[in-house]
C-alpha cells in the first residue's frame, strides 16, 4: 500500500476528482492548506500599506492505494492537475504500514 499526497491548485480540484473517479479511485481526503515552492507570491496594498503575500492557498489531497494502482493514479493526477505553469504543485508518495477499516476491522488492501 502507498499513500499519495498531492499539493495542487485549488481551482484544479474538481478536474482532478473527476479524473480519479474515471479510473475508479473514489476515496480521498482533501485539506485546504497554504504554502509555496518556487512560485512567487503577490503584492497587496491597503490604503498605501503594502503587504507581500507569499503563502498561497493550495489543496492537499491524500489517497491510499494498493501497490498496483499507484502508477496509474499518479499519471492521472499529474495530467489533470497540470497547467504547465509554476505553482501547479507536487506529489509525494509514502509507504503505508497498515490500513484498518473502523466499521468492521478489515485490514490491508481490503480496508481501502
Amino acid at each position, binding site marked *: 500500500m502507498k499513500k499519495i499526497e498531492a499539493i495542487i491548485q485549488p481551482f484544479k480540484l474538481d478536474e482532478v476528482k473527476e479524473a480519479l473517479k474515471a479510473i475508479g479511485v473514489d476515496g480521498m481526503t482533501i485539506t485546504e492548506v497554504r504554502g509555496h515552492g518556487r512560485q512567487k507570491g503577490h503584492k*497587496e*496594498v*491597503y*490604503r*498605501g*500599506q503594502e*503587504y507581500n503575500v507569499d503563502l498561497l492557498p493550495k489543496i492537499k489531497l491524500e489517497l491510499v492505494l494498493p501497490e498496483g494502482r499507484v502508477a496509474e493514479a499518479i499519471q492521472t493526477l499529474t495530467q489533470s492537475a497540470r497547467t504547465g505553469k509554476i505553482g501547479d504543485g507536487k506529489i509525494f508518495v509514502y509507504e503505508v504500514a497498515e490500513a484498518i477499516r473502523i466499521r468492521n476491522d478489515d485490514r490491508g488492501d481490503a480496508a481501502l
Partner: protein
Amino acid sequence: MRRVAYSLLAPFVALAQQPAGEDRIAALEQAAAAAQGSADNAWMLASTALVLLMTGPGLALFYGGLVRKKNVLSTLMHSFVLMALASVMWAVIGYSLAFGDGNMFVGDLRFAFLDGVGMEPNGDYAGTIPHLTFMAFQMMFAIITPALISGAFAERMKFSAMVLFTILWLLIVYFPMAHMVWGKGGFMNAFGDGPLPCFDFAGGTVVHITSGVSALICAIYLGKRHGYPHEPIKPHNLVFSFTGACLLWFGWFGFNAGSALGASGLAASAFVATHLGAAAGALGWLLAEWMRSGKPSCLGGISGAVAGLVAITPASGFVKPMPSILIGFAAGLVCYFMVVAVKHKLGYDDALDAFGVHGVGGTLGAILTGVFATKAVNDGLGTAALGMVDGNGFQVVNQTLGALFAWILAAAGTWVILKICDVLIGVRVPADDEIQGLDLSQHGEEGYILES
C-alpha cells in the same frame, strides 16, 4: 378609516362652512402651516432614522471590515454601544447642554431630562417640526461623532476605558462644541450673531473636526498596535467595509439634507451637493491611487467617497452643485495623500484613518465652505454676502479660525480625558489580550465560529 378621512378633511369642511373674511383667511393659513409642518416632520423623522443608519450598521460595518477578524465584534460594539449610551446621555443632559440657552460656550439645564421638549415646535431652531423631532435628529449626531473616533483606537483600547472616555468626551468636547456652533447665542453661530461667525451646515466642525482631531490624539496616546507596521495587519472583510461605506453614503442624505430642518428647496440643494461631493471624492481618491500605485482599489474608492462626504458636510447647505464637485474631489486627493503618505512618514497608528479622513476632510471642508458659500443657495442671513464667491473673502479667515478653535478644544479635551481614563482604569489592553483579540478578551465571544 372613515373617521380618519373625515378628520383629515375637517379643516376644509370647516372652511366651506365659514363666511368669507378674516376667519376664512386665518383658517387657510392654519391649514397651510399644518400641511407644511406635516411635510417637514415626515422628512425630518425619515432623516433622523437615516442618520442612525450611518452608525449602525453603516460605520460599524465600514470599520468592522477593516480590522482583523479577532477584533470584529469589539469594533462593531464601539459603534453599537454609542447608539445606546449617547442616546441616553443626550436625553438626560446632552440636548440641554447643546441647545439650552446658557452662555456662549455651553447650554444650560433647561431641557435636562427633556423637560419642556414636546410636540410643540421650538421656534429658536425649527419652527415647523415638533421639538421632539429636532431633539431626536440632533441625538443621532451625538451618537455618530464619538463612534467616528473609534477608528483610531480600534484593536487595542479597553472597552471599559472606551465607555468612560466617551461619556467624558461628550460632556467636555461634543456638547459644548455643538452649542458653540449651532446653539442659541453660540460663540461661532453665524445665524445667532456669534462673535466668530462660522458656517457649518451639518457638522464639518462639530462632528468631523472634533472627532478626527480627537482620533489623532487617541492614536498618539495609545501608541501603535502590536506588530504595526512590520507585521501584516490586513482588513479581514472588505465586503463589510464596502457595504458599510455605501450605507454611510445613503444615510448621509439624512445627515446633510436633513440639516435643512424641513422638506425645503434647501434640503434638495444639500441633497444634491452631498451626492456630488461623495461621487467626486471617490473619483479623486481612485485617480490618485491609480496614478501612484498602479491599481485603483475598492477600499480606495469607498474611502474617497467618505472623504468627499466629510468635506461637503459643512458646505452642503451653502454651495451650488459645481463647487460641491470641486470640494469632494479635493477631499479625495488630499485625504488620500494624508493616509498613504503623511501618516506613514509621521509614524502614528491611526488604525482605520479616522483622522486622515474625518480630521483632514473636515478641516478642508470647513475652509472651502468659506470660499464657496453663497446667498444664492442659503438666504439665512438675508442678502448679506456669505463666502468668497459672494465677495466676502474674510469668511475664509473666520472658517479657518473656527476650525482651529475646534482643533484646540478637541485635542486638549481628548488629552485630558485620556489621562483621566488612564489613571482610573488604564486605556490600553494588556499585550496578551491584544494578541488574543479584543472579541475574546473584552467581550468573551468570537465573530466567526466556523465549526459550530
